[in-house]
Protein backbone atom coordinates (compact mmCIF):
# COMPACT_ATOMS: atom_id res chain seq x y z
CA UNK A 1 0.00 0.00 0.00
CA UNK A 2 1.13 3.49 -0.77
CA UNK A 3 2.35 5.68 2.05
CA UNK A 4 0.31 8.65 0.85
CA UNK A 5 -2.56 9.09 3.28
CA UNK A 6 -3.96 12.27 1.77
CA UNK A 7 -3.63 12.90 -1.92
CA UNK A 8 -5.30 16.00 -3.32
CA UNK A 9 -4.98 16.45 -7.08
CA UNK A 10 -6.03 19.53 -9.06
CA UNK A 11 -8.83 20.24 -6.61
CA UNK A 12 -11.13 23.17 -7.36
CA UNK A 13 -14.25 24.37 -5.63
CA UNK A 14 -16.62 27.20 -6.48
CA UNK A 15 -19.16 29.09 -4.43
CA UNK A 16 -21.59 30.82 -6.77
CA UNK A 17 -19.05 30.95 -9.59
CA UNK A 18 -16.42 32.38 -7.25
CA UNK A 19 -13.40 30.12 -7.27
CA UNK A 20 -12.50 29.40 -3.66
CA UNK A 21 -9.99 26.63 -4.37
CA UNK A 22 -7.96 26.82 -7.55
CA UNK A 23 -6.44 23.52 -8.64
CA UNK A 24 -4.65 22.76 -5.43
CA UNK A 25 -2.35 19.78 -4.97
CA UNK A 26 -1.43 18.49 -1.57
CA UNK A 27 0.08 15.33 -0.14
CA UNK A 28 0.36 14.05 3.40
CA UNK A 29 2.27 10.88 4.16
CA UNK A 30 1.69 8.31 6.87
CA UNK A 31 2.62 9.59 10.32
CA UNK A 32 3.10 13.18 9.21
CA UNK A 33 1.61 16.21 10.90
CA UNK A 34 0.87 18.76 8.20
CA UNK A 35 0.27 22.37 9.18
CA UNK A 36 -2.15 24.01 6.80
CA UNK A 37 -1.54 27.72 7.04
CA UNK A 38 -3.16 30.71 5.51
CA UNK A 39 -4.94 33.95 6.26
CA UNK A 40 -8.66 33.89 7.04
CA UNK A 41 -10.73 33.23 3.95
CA UNK A 42 -7.86 31.65 2.03
CA UNK A 43 -9.66 28.34 1.57
CA UNK A 44 -8.37 26.32 4.54
CA UNK A 45 -11.75 25.37 5.93
CA UNK A 46 -13.17 24.59 2.49
CA UNK A 47 -10.29 22.22 1.79
CA UNK A 48 -10.70 20.45 5.13
CA UNK A 49 -14.46 20.15 4.69
CA UNK A 50 -13.91 18.52 1.33
CA UNK A 51 -11.40 16.13 2.89
CA UNK A 52 -13.93 15.28 5.59
CA UNK A 53 -16.64 14.55 3.03
CA UNK A 54 -18.88 17.47 3.99
CA UNK A 55 -18.45 19.21 0.66
CA UNK A 56 -18.02 17.78 -2.78
CA UNK A 57 -15.22 19.13 -5.00
CA UNK A 58 -16.18 20.67 -8.33
CA UNK A 59 -13.03 19.52 -10.07
CA UNK A 60 -10.11 17.30 -9.24
CA UNK A 61 -9.83 14.29 -7.00
CA UNK A 62 -9.16 13.51 -3.36
CA UNK A 63 -7.89 10.16 -2.15
CA UNK A 64 -7.77 9.18 1.49
CA UNK A 65 -5.48 6.20 2.12
CA UNK A 66 -5.79 5.42 -1.58
CA UNK A 67 -9.62 5.56 -1.64
CA UNK A 68 -11.30 8.16 -3.85
CA UNK A 69 -13.78 10.11 -1.73
CA UNK A 70 -16.19 10.67 -4.61
CA UNK A 71 -16.22 7.08 -5.86
CA UNK A 72 -16.35 5.37 -2.46
CA UNK A 73 -17.45 8.03 0.00
CA UNK A 74 -18.47 5.69 2.80
CA UNK A 75 -15.30 3.59 2.60
CA UNK A 76 -13.17 6.76 2.54
CA UNK A 77 -14.95 8.15 5.59
CA UNK A 78 -14.04 5.11 7.68
CA UNK A 79 -10.46 6.36 7.41
CA UNK A 80 -10.98 9.88 8.71
CA UNK A 81 -11.74 11.72 11.91
CA UNK A 82 -12.74 15.35 11.62
CA UNK A 83 -12.81 18.22 14.10
CA UNK A 84 -14.61 21.21 12.55
CA UNK A 85 -14.11 24.81 13.65
CA UNK A 86 -16.47 24.36 16.58
CA UNK A 87 -16.65 20.93 18.20
CA UNK A 88 -19.67 18.95 16.90
CA UNK A 89 -21.30 18.11 20.25
CA UNK A 90 -24.76 17.06 21.39
CA UNK A 91 -25.26 19.17 24.49
CA UNK A 92 -27.80 16.86 26.11
CA UNK A 93 -25.44 13.87 26.18
CA UNK A 94 -22.68 12.98 28.61
CA UNK A 95 -19.10 12.73 27.37
CA UNK A 96 -19.19 8.95 27.49
CA UNK A 97 -22.59 8.59 25.79
CA UNK A 98 -21.45 10.94 23.05
CA UNK A 99 -18.25 9.07 22.33
CA UNK A 100 -19.97 5.67 22.48
CA UNK A 101 -22.56 6.93 19.98
CA UNK A 102 -19.96 8.12 17.51
CA UNK A 103 -17.76 5.06 17.96
CA UNK A 104 -20.78 2.92 17.01
CA UNK A 105 -21.54 5.07 13.98
CA UNK A 106 -17.92 4.78 12.89
CA UNK A 107 -18.01 1.01 12.75
CA UNK A 108 -16.02 0.20 15.87
CA UNK A 109 -16.95 -3.46 16.60
CA UNK A 110 -19.50 -3.67 19.45
CA UNK A 111 -17.19 -5.51 21.85
CA UNK A 112 -14.47 -2.88 21.40
CA UNK A 113 -16.58 0.26 21.76
CA UNK A 114 -16.03 0.74 25.49
CA UNK A 115 -12.34 0.12 25.16
CA UNK A 116 -12.04 2.59 22.28
CA UNK A 117 -13.98 5.23 24.20
CA UNK A 118 -11.87 4.76 27.34
CA UNK A 119 -8.73 5.10 25.28
CA UNK A 120 -9.89 8.28 23.54
CA UNK A 121 -10.98 9.82 26.86
CA UNK A 122 -7.67 8.88 28.42
CA UNK A 123 -5.66 10.43 25.58
CA UNK A 124 -7.66 13.64 25.67
CA UNK A 125 -7.77 13.90 29.46
CA UNK A 126 -11.52 13.46 29.68
CA UNK A 127 -11.73 10.53 32.10
CA UNK A 128 -12.56 12.80 35.03
CA UNK A 129 -15.54 14.34 33.24
CA UNK A 130 -16.79 11.14 31.55
CA UNK A 131 -20.24 11.36 33.11
CA UNK A 132 -20.81 15.07 32.84
CA UNK A 133 -23.17 16.64 30.35
CA UNK A 134 -21.42 18.22 27.38
CA UNK A 135 -23.55 21.33 27.91
CA UNK A 136 -21.87 21.95 31.27
CA UNK A 137 -18.28 21.62 30.11
CA UNK A 138 -15.85 24.50 29.74
CA UNK A 139 -14.59 25.51 26.34
CA UNK A 140 -11.30 23.65 26.76
CA UNK A 141 -13.04 20.41 27.66
CA UNK A 142 -15.49 20.82 24.80
CA UNK A 143 -12.60 21.17 22.41
CA UNK A 144 -11.00 18.03 23.85
CA UNK A 145 -14.28 16.17 23.33
CA UNK A 146 -14.21 17.37 19.74
CA UNK A 147 -10.73 15.90 19.33
CA UNK A 148 -11.74 12.72 21.17
CA UNK A 149 -14.59 12.12 18.72
CA UNK A 150 -12.16 12.59 15.84
CA UNK A 151 -9.84 9.85 17.13
CA UNK A 152 -12.24 7.48 18.92
CA UNK A 153 -12.37 5.07 15.96
CA UNK A 154 -8.57 5.26 15.44
CA UNK A 155 -8.80 6.71 11.93
CA UNK A 156 -5.73 6.77 9.78
CA UNK A 157 -6.22 10.44 8.93
CA UNK A 158 -7.14 13.09 11.48
CA UNK A 159 -8.37 16.45 10.17
CA UNK A 160 -8.36 19.33 12.65
CA UNK A 161 -9.74 22.76 11.76
CA UNK A 162 -8.13 25.36 14.01
CA UNK A 163 -7.92 23.08 17.04
CA UNK A 164 -6.62 25.68 19.51
CA UNK A 165 -8.81 28.67 18.72
CA UNK A 166 -10.32 30.33 21.77
CA UNK A 167 -8.40 28.30 24.33
CA UNK A 168 -6.30 29.68 27.17
CA UNK A 169 -2.50 29.29 27.01
CA UNK A 170 -2.39 26.22 29.26
CA UNK A 171 -5.07 24.45 27.25
CA UNK A 172 -3.34 25.39 24.02
CA UNK A 173 -0.17 23.77 25.29
CA UNK A 174 -2.00 20.58 26.23
CA UNK A 175 -3.78 20.33 22.90
CA UNK A 176 -0.55 20.92 21.01
CA UNK A 177 1.08 18.16 23.01
CA UNK A 178 -1.80 15.88 22.12
CA UNK A 179 -1.49 16.71 18.41
CA UNK A 180 2.24 15.96 18.46
CA UNK A 181 1.39 12.66 20.06
CA UNK A 182 -1.20 11.88 17.39
CA UNK A 183 1.37 12.09 14.61
CA UNK A 184 3.11 8.77 14.40
CA UNK A 185 0.12 6.45 14.46
CA UNK A 186 -2.15 8.86 12.60
CA UNK A 187 -1.57 11.28 9.77
CA UNK A 188 -2.74 14.69 10.86
CA UNK A 189 -3.64 17.76 8.87
CA UNK A 190 -4.42 20.83 10.93
CA UNK A 191 -5.34 24.31 9.82
CA UNK A 192 -4.29 27.37 11.70
CA UNK A 193 -3.19 30.92 11.20
CA UNK A 194 -0.85 30.84 14.17
CA UNK A 195 2.72 30.28 13.07
CA UNK A 196 4.29 29.15 16.34
CA UNK A 197 1.64 26.45 16.47
CA UNK A 198 3.00 25.01 13.25
CA UNK A 199 6.56 25.23 14.52
CA UNK A 200 5.61 23.40 17.69
CA UNK A 201 3.43 20.66 16.29
CA UNK A 202 4.04 20.01 12.62
CA UNK A 203 6.74 18.46 10.51
CA UNK A 204 5.37 19.70 7.20
CA UNK A 205 3.80 22.95 6.16
CA UNK A 206 1.56 24.06 3.34
CA UNK A 207 0.57 27.65 2.83
CA UNK A 208 -2.65 28.47 1.04
CA UNK A 209 -3.52 31.93 -0.17
CA UNK A 210 -6.45 33.02 -2.33
CA UNK A 211 -7.32 29.40 -3.00
CA UNK A 212 -3.85 28.40 -4.16
CA UNK A 213 -1.09 26.46 -2.49
CA UNK A 214 1.85 28.86 -2.57
CA UNK A 215 4.26 26.75 -0.58
CA UNK A 216 4.65 23.17 0.54
CA UNK A 217 7.78 22.14 2.42
CA UNK A 218 9.09 20.31 5.45
CA UNK A 219 9.54 22.38 8.58
CA UNK A 220 13.33 21.96 8.46
CA UNK A 221 13.39 23.14 4.87
CA UNK A 222 11.48 26.22 5.86
CA UNK A 223 13.66 26.96 8.84
CA UNK A 224 16.77 26.64 6.72
CA UNK A 225 15.21 29.13 4.40
CA UNK A 226 14.34 31.41 7.27
CA UNK A 227 17.77 31.26 8.91
CA UNK A 228 19.37 32.70 5.83
CA UNK A 229 17.45 35.90 6.30
CA UNK A 230 17.55 35.96 10.03
CA UNK A 231 19.11 39.03 11.65
CA UNK A 232 19.97 40.20 15.15
CA UNK A 233 18.54 42.85 17.37
CA UNK A 234 21.22 44.64 19.36
CA UNK A 235 21.23 47.35 22.09
CA UNK A 236 24.32 49.16 23.36
CA UNK A 237 24.82 51.55 26.26
CA UNK A 238 27.22 53.62 24.17
CA UNK A 239 26.39 52.79 20.54
CA UNK A 240 29.31 52.91 18.16
CA UNK A 241 29.50 54.70 14.87
CA UNK A 242 27.50 52.99 12.12
CA UNK A 243 30.46 52.99 9.76
CA UNK A 244 32.49 51.12 12.38
CA UNK A 245 29.87 48.37 12.46
CA UNK A 246 29.80 48.07 8.71
CA UNK A 247 33.53 47.52 8.86
CA UNK A 248 33.15 44.24 10.73
CA UNK A 249 33.61 41.30 8.37
CA UNK A 250 30.48 39.33 7.53
CA UNK A 251 27.91 42.02 8.18
CA UNK A 252 25.63 42.67 5.25
CA UNK A 253 23.38 45.36 6.58
CA UNK A 254 23.13 47.65 9.60
CA UNK A 255 20.30 49.89 10.58
CA UNK A 256 19.30 51.52 13.82
CA UNK A 257 17.66 54.47 15.52
CA UNK A 258 20.41 55.05 18.09
CA UNK A 259 19.09 52.72 20.80
CA UNK A 260 17.94 49.58 18.97
CA UNK A 261 20.03 48.26 16.13
CA UNK A 262 19.36 45.62 13.57
CA UNK A 263 22.22 43.68 12.06
CA UNK A 264 21.82 41.26 9.19
CA UNK A 265 24.81 39.00 8.50
CA UNK A 266 25.95 37.73 5.15
CA UNK A 267 24.52 34.35 4.25
CA UNK A 268 27.88 32.60 4.50
CA UNK A 269 29.38 34.33 7.54
CA UNK A 270 28.90 34.59 11.29
CA UNK A 271 30.02 38.04 12.42
CA UNK A 272 28.63 37.76 15.93
CA UNK A 273 31.77 36.62 17.86
CA UNK A 274 33.74 39.46 16.32
CA UNK A 275 30.94 41.92 17.07
CA UNK A 276 30.87 40.90 20.72
CA UNK A 277 34.67 41.02 20.98
CA UNK A 278 34.75 44.57 19.61
CA UNK A 279 31.90 45.61 21.92
CA UNK A 280 33.93 44.54 24.91
CA UNK A 281 37.21 45.93 23.59
CA UNK A 282 35.75 49.37 22.89
CA UNK A 283 33.48 49.47 25.91
CA UNK A 284 30.23 49.96 23.95
CA UNK A 285 28.32 48.37 26.82
CA UNK A 286 26.45 45.53 25.11
CA UNK A 287 23.03 45.18 26.76
CA UNK A 288 21.06 42.98 24.41
CA UNK A 289 21.77 40.62 21.55
CA UNK A 290 18.75 38.70 20.26
CA UNK A 291 18.36 36.60 17.13
CA UNK A 292 15.27 37.85 15.30
CA UNK A 293 12.83 34.96 15.15
CA UNK A 294 10.11 36.69 13.18
CA UNK A 295 11.43 35.73 9.82
CA UNK A 296 9.34 32.59 9.33
CA UNK A 297 6.33 34.81 9.68
CA UNK A 298 7.89 37.29 7.32
CA UNK A 299 8.40 34.57 4.74
CA UNK A 300 4.73 33.72 4.95
CA UNK A 301 3.63 37.30 4.75
CA UNK A 302 5.87 37.85 1.77
CA UNK A 303 4.62 34.72 -0.01
CA UNK A 304 1.07 35.65 0.74
CA UNK A 305 1.41 39.17 -0.57
CA UNK A 306 3.47 38.22 -3.61
CA UNK A 307 0.52 36.28 -4.97
CA UNK A 308 -1.61 39.37 -5.05
Amino acid sequence: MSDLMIEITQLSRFYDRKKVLDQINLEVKRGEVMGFLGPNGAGKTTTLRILAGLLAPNEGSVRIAGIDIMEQPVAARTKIGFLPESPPLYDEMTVREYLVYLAQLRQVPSQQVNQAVDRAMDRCGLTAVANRLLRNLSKGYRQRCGIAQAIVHSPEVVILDEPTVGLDPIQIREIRGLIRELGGDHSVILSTHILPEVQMTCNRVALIHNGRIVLQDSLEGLERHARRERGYRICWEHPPDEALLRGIAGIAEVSGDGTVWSVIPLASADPIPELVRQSVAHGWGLRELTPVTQSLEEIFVRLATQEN
Partner: protein
Amino acid sequence: MLRPIVTIALREWRSMFLSPLAWTLIGVLFAIVSYMFVGAISRYHEQQFAYGSFGGGASQLPLTDMVVAPMFGNVAVLLLLVLPLITMRLLADEKRHGSWPALASSPITAGQIVLGKYGGLLLFLMMSVGLLSLPAWLLFGFGHPDGGQILSGLIGLLLVSATFGAIGLAASSATDNPMVAAITTFGMLLLLWIASWTGEAAGDRIEKILSYLSLINHYENFLKGVISSADLSYFLLCSAAGLLYARQRLVTERISA
Protein backbone atom coordinates in the same frame (compact mmCIF):
# COMPACT_ATOMS: atom_id res chain seq x y z
CA MET B 1 -26.39 -1.48 6.94
CA LEU B 2 -29.01 -1.51 9.66
CA ARG B 3 -26.77 -0.84 12.64
CA PRO B 4 -26.19 2.89 12.02
CA ILE B 5 -29.91 3.41 11.43
CA VAL B 6 -30.76 1.81 14.78
CA THR B 7 -27.94 3.71 16.50
CA ILE B 8 -29.17 7.07 15.18
CA ALA B 9 -32.82 6.22 15.88
CA LEU B 10 -32.18 5.28 19.51
CA ARG B 11 -30.10 8.40 20.13
CA GLU B 12 -32.76 10.59 18.55
CA TRP B 13 -35.51 8.98 20.59
CA ARG B 14 -33.55 9.36 23.82
CA SER B 15 -32.66 12.95 23.10
CA MET B 16 -36.34 13.80 22.57
CA PHE B 17 -37.05 12.64 26.08
CA LEU B 18 -34.04 14.41 27.49
CA SER B 19 -35.56 17.70 26.42
CA PRO B 20 -38.57 19.10 28.25
CA LEU B 21 -40.25 19.86 24.92
CA ALA B 22 -41.43 16.31 24.25
CA TRP B 23 -42.65 15.80 27.79
CA THR B 24 -44.51 19.11 27.80
CA LEU B 25 -46.18 18.38 24.47
CA ILE B 26 -47.30 14.92 25.51
CA GLY B 27 -48.56 16.23 28.85
CA VAL B 28 -50.49 19.12 27.32
CA LEU B 29 -51.96 16.95 24.55
CA PHE B 30 -52.99 14.28 27.01
CA ALA B 31 -54.78 16.84 29.15
CA ILE B 32 -56.63 18.28 26.14
CA VAL B 33 -57.56 14.85 24.77
CA SER B 34 -58.84 13.68 28.17
CA TYR B 35 -60.95 16.81 28.46
CA MET B 36 -62.41 16.24 24.99
CA PHE B 37 -63.05 12.62 25.86
CA VAL B 38 -65.04 13.55 28.94
CA GLY B 39 -67.04 16.03 26.85
CA ALA B 40 -67.77 13.39 24.19
CA ILE B 41 -68.87 10.88 26.83
CA SER B 42 -71.31 13.24 28.49
CA ARG B 43 -72.71 14.25 25.09
CA TYR B 44 -73.13 10.60 24.24
CA HIS B 45 -74.84 10.06 27.55
CA GLU B 46 -77.36 12.85 26.86
CA GLN B 47 -78.08 11.60 23.36
CA GLN B 48 -78.48 8.03 24.52
CA PHE B 49 -80.95 9.28 27.12
CA ALA B 50 -82.92 11.23 24.51
CA TYR B 51 -82.78 8.30 22.09
CA GLY B 52 -84.13 5.96 24.77
CA SER B 53 -87.00 8.26 25.71
CA PHE B 54 -88.01 8.66 22.04
CA GLY B 55 -88.55 4.95 21.67
CA GLY B 56 -85.03 3.64 21.12
CA GLY B 57 -85.67 1.22 23.88
CA ALA B 58 -82.73 -0.68 25.30
CA SER B 59 -80.62 -0.56 22.10
CA GLN B 60 -77.44 1.50 22.29
CA LEU B 61 -76.21 4.26 20.05
CA PRO B 62 -72.86 3.35 18.36
CA LEU B 63 -70.38 4.18 21.08
CA THR B 64 -67.27 4.00 18.90
CA ASP B 65 -68.67 6.18 16.13
CA MET B 66 -69.88 8.83 18.52
CA VAL B 67 -67.00 8.96 21.01
CA VAL B 68 -63.84 7.33 19.68
CA ALA B 69 -63.93 8.43 16.04
CA PRO B 70 -64.35 12.16 16.80
CA MET B 71 -61.73 11.91 19.51
CA PHE B 72 -59.18 10.36 17.15
CA GLY B 73 -60.10 13.02 14.61
CA ASN B 74 -59.29 15.69 17.17
CA VAL B 75 -56.01 14.02 18.12
CA ALA B 76 -54.93 14.21 14.46
CA VAL B 77 -55.72 17.95 14.38
CA LEU B 78 -53.76 18.47 17.59
CA LEU B 79 -50.81 16.55 16.16
CA LEU B 80 -50.99 18.73 13.06
CA LEU B 81 -50.55 21.73 15.33
CA VAL B 82 -47.76 20.45 17.56
CA LEU B 83 -45.79 17.89 15.55
CA PRO B 84 -44.00 20.60 13.53
CA LEU B 85 -42.46 21.67 16.85
CA ILE B 86 -41.03 18.19 17.33
CA THR B 87 -39.90 17.54 13.77
CA MET B 88 -38.33 20.96 13.25
CA ARG B 89 -35.30 19.96 15.27
CA LEU B 90 -34.53 16.67 13.55
CA LEU B 91 -32.01 17.90 10.99
CA ALA B 92 -32.12 21.69 11.23
CA ASP B 93 -30.86 21.58 14.81
CA GLU B 94 -27.87 19.46 13.88
CA LYS B 95 -26.78 22.10 11.42
CA ARG B 96 -27.61 25.01 13.66
CA HIS B 97 -25.78 23.64 16.69
CA GLY B 98 -22.83 22.40 14.68
CA SER B 99 -23.14 18.69 15.46
CA TRP B 100 -23.82 17.95 11.80
CA PRO B 101 -20.14 17.46 10.81
CA ALA B 102 -19.85 14.58 13.29
CA LEU B 103 -22.62 12.76 11.42
CA ALA B 104 -21.63 13.86 7.93
CA SER B 105 -18.00 12.79 8.33
CA SER B 106 -19.03 9.35 9.62
CA PRO B 107 -19.10 6.38 7.24
CA ILE B 108 -22.87 6.42 6.80
CA THR B 109 -25.05 7.36 3.84
CA ALA B 110 -27.57 10.20 3.67
CA GLY B 111 -30.28 7.57 3.41
CA GLN B 112 -29.17 5.97 6.67
CA ILE B 113 -29.17 9.33 8.42
CA VAL B 114 -32.71 10.09 7.21
CA LEU B 115 -34.03 6.62 8.11
CA GLY B 116 -32.34 6.78 11.51
CA LYS B 117 -33.87 10.15 12.30
CA TYR B 118 -37.25 8.95 11.06
CA GLY B 119 -36.98 5.75 13.07
CA GLY B 120 -36.37 7.74 16.26
CA LEU B 121 -39.34 9.94 15.46
CA LEU B 122 -41.57 6.91 14.81
CA LEU B 123 -40.65 5.45 18.20
CA PHE B 124 -41.65 8.72 19.78
CA LEU B 125 -44.88 8.89 17.76
CA MET B 126 -45.89 5.34 18.65
CA MET B 127 -45.42 6.10 22.32
CA SER B 128 -47.36 9.35 22.19
CA VAL B 129 -50.18 8.05 19.99
CA GLY B 130 -50.45 4.96 22.18
CA LEU B 131 -50.72 7.16 25.24
CA LEU B 132 -53.23 9.52 23.64
CA SER B 133 -55.48 6.61 22.63
CA LEU B 134 -55.66 5.25 26.17
CA PRO B 135 -59.03 6.93 26.95
CA ALA B 136 -60.62 5.00 24.06
CA TRP B 137 -59.78 1.70 25.69
CA LEU B 138 -61.35 2.90 28.94
CA LEU B 139 -64.73 2.54 27.21
CA PHE B 140 -64.53 -1.23 27.60
CA GLY B 141 -65.02 -0.61 31.30
CA PHE B 142 -68.57 0.68 30.93
CA GLY B 143 -69.91 -0.14 27.48
CA HIS B 144 -69.49 -2.23 24.39
CA PRO B 145 -67.28 -0.33 21.97
CA ASP B 146 -66.14 -1.89 18.71
CA GLY B 147 -62.57 -3.04 19.39
CA GLY B 148 -61.85 -3.56 15.70
CA GLN B 149 -62.90 -0.06 14.83
CA ILE B 150 -60.80 1.41 17.62
CA LEU B 151 -57.81 -0.55 16.35
CA SER B 152 -58.43 0.62 12.79
CA GLY B 153 -58.66 4.22 14.01
CA LEU B 154 -55.43 3.76 15.94
CA ILE B 155 -53.67 2.44 12.85
CA GLY B 156 -55.03 5.40 10.91
CA LEU B 157 -53.78 7.79 13.58
CA LEU B 158 -50.33 6.19 13.49
CA LEU B 159 -50.21 6.50 9.70
CA VAL B 160 -51.33 10.12 9.83
CA SER B 161 -48.67 10.99 12.40
CA ALA B 162 -46.02 9.04 10.47
CA THR B 163 -46.91 11.06 7.36
CA PHE B 164 -46.76 14.30 9.33
CA GLY B 165 -43.38 13.22 10.64
CA ALA B 166 -41.96 12.46 7.18
CA ILE B 167 -43.11 15.84 5.86
CA GLY B 168 -41.66 17.53 8.94
CA LEU B 169 -38.37 15.74 8.40
CA ALA B 170 -38.32 16.91 4.78
CA ALA B 171 -38.86 20.52 5.86
CA SER B 172 -36.19 20.17 8.54
CA SER B 173 -33.67 18.92 5.97
CA ALA B 174 -34.13 22.02 3.83
CA THR B 175 -33.06 24.64 6.36
CA ASP B 176 -30.76 25.21 9.31
CA ASN B 177 -33.41 27.27 11.07
CA PRO B 178 -35.81 25.14 13.15
CA MET B 179 -38.49 27.85 13.24
CA VAL B 180 -38.55 28.03 9.45
CA ALA B 181 -38.83 24.25 9.34
CA ALA B 182 -41.74 24.33 11.82
CA ILE B 183 -43.69 26.96 9.91
CA THR B 184 -43.11 25.24 6.57
CA THR B 185 -44.23 21.92 8.02
CA PHE B 186 -47.31 23.44 9.56
CA GLY B 187 -48.26 25.08 6.25
CA MET B 188 -47.80 21.89 4.26
CA LEU B 189 -49.73 19.75 6.73
CA LEU B 190 -52.61 22.19 6.84
CA LEU B 191 -52.74 22.38 3.04
CA LEU B 192 -52.76 18.61 2.83
CA TRP B 193 -55.52 18.50 5.42
CA ILE B 194 -57.77 20.96 3.60
CA ALA B 195 -56.76 20.10 0.04
CA SER B 196 -60.31 19.22 -0.99
CA TRP B 197 -61.84 22.51 0.17
CA THR B 198 -61.53 24.28 -3.16
CA GLY B 199 -62.34 21.14 -5.13
CA GLU B 200 -65.89 21.93 -6.14
CA ALA B 201 -65.04 25.32 -7.56
CA ALA B 202 -62.06 24.01 -9.52
CA GLY B 203 -63.87 21.65 -11.87
CA ASP B 204 -64.44 17.96 -12.08
CA ARG B 205 -61.06 16.52 -12.81
CA ILE B 206 -59.12 18.75 -10.45
CA GLU B 207 -61.68 18.04 -7.78
CA LYS B 208 -60.87 14.36 -8.05
CA ILE B 209 -57.15 14.98 -7.71
CA LEU B 210 -57.59 17.35 -4.81
CA SER B 211 -59.92 15.02 -3.01
CA TYR B 212 -57.39 12.20 -3.44
CA LEU B 213 -54.65 14.43 -2.08
CA SER B 214 -56.72 15.48 0.88
CA LEU B 215 -55.44 13.64 3.90
CA ILE B 216 -58.66 13.82 5.85
CA ASN B 217 -60.60 11.80 3.24
CA HIS B 218 -58.25 8.86 3.72
CA TYR B 219 -58.11 9.19 7.47
CA GLU B 220 -61.89 9.15 7.81
CA ASN B 221 -62.08 5.67 6.31
CA PHE B 222 -59.81 4.37 9.04
CA LEU B 223 -61.99 6.03 11.66
CA LYS B 224 -65.01 4.27 10.21
CA GLY B 225 -63.19 0.97 10.58
CA VAL B 226 -62.33 0.58 6.90
CA ILE B 227 -58.73 -0.30 6.11
CA SER B 228 -58.25 -0.19 2.35
CA SER B 229 -55.07 -0.56 0.33
CA ALA B 230 -55.85 2.72 -1.44
CA ASP B 231 -55.72 4.64 1.83
CA LEU B 232 -52.75 2.68 3.09
CA SER B 233 -50.79 3.39 -0.07
CA TYR B 234 -51.70 7.09 0.15
CA PHE B 235 -50.02 7.40 3.55
CA LEU B 236 -47.06 5.25 2.57
CA LEU B 237 -46.54 7.29 -0.60
CA CYS B 238 -46.68 10.61 1.24
CA SER B 239 -44.21 9.36 3.85
CA ALA B 240 -41.86 7.94 1.24
CA ALA B 241 -41.95 11.21 -0.70
CA GLY B 242 -40.97 13.14 2.43
CA LEU B 243 -38.11 10.77 3.23
CA LEU B 244 -36.81 10.74 -0.34
CA TYR B 245 -36.86 14.52 -0.46
CA ALA B 246 -34.90 14.73 2.80
CA ARG B 247 -32.33 12.23 1.56
CA GLN B 248 -31.94 14.10 -1.73
CA ARG B 249 -31.52 17.34 0.18
CA LEU B 250 -28.66 15.91 2.23
CA VAL B 251 -26.97 14.49 -0.87
CA THR B 252 -27.11 17.70 -2.89
CA GLU B 253 -26.05 19.77 0.10
CA ARG B 254 -22.54 18.42 -0.24
CA ILE B 255 -22.47 19.80 -3.76
CA SER B 256 -24.28 23.11 -3.48
CA ALA B 257 -23.57 24.31 0.07
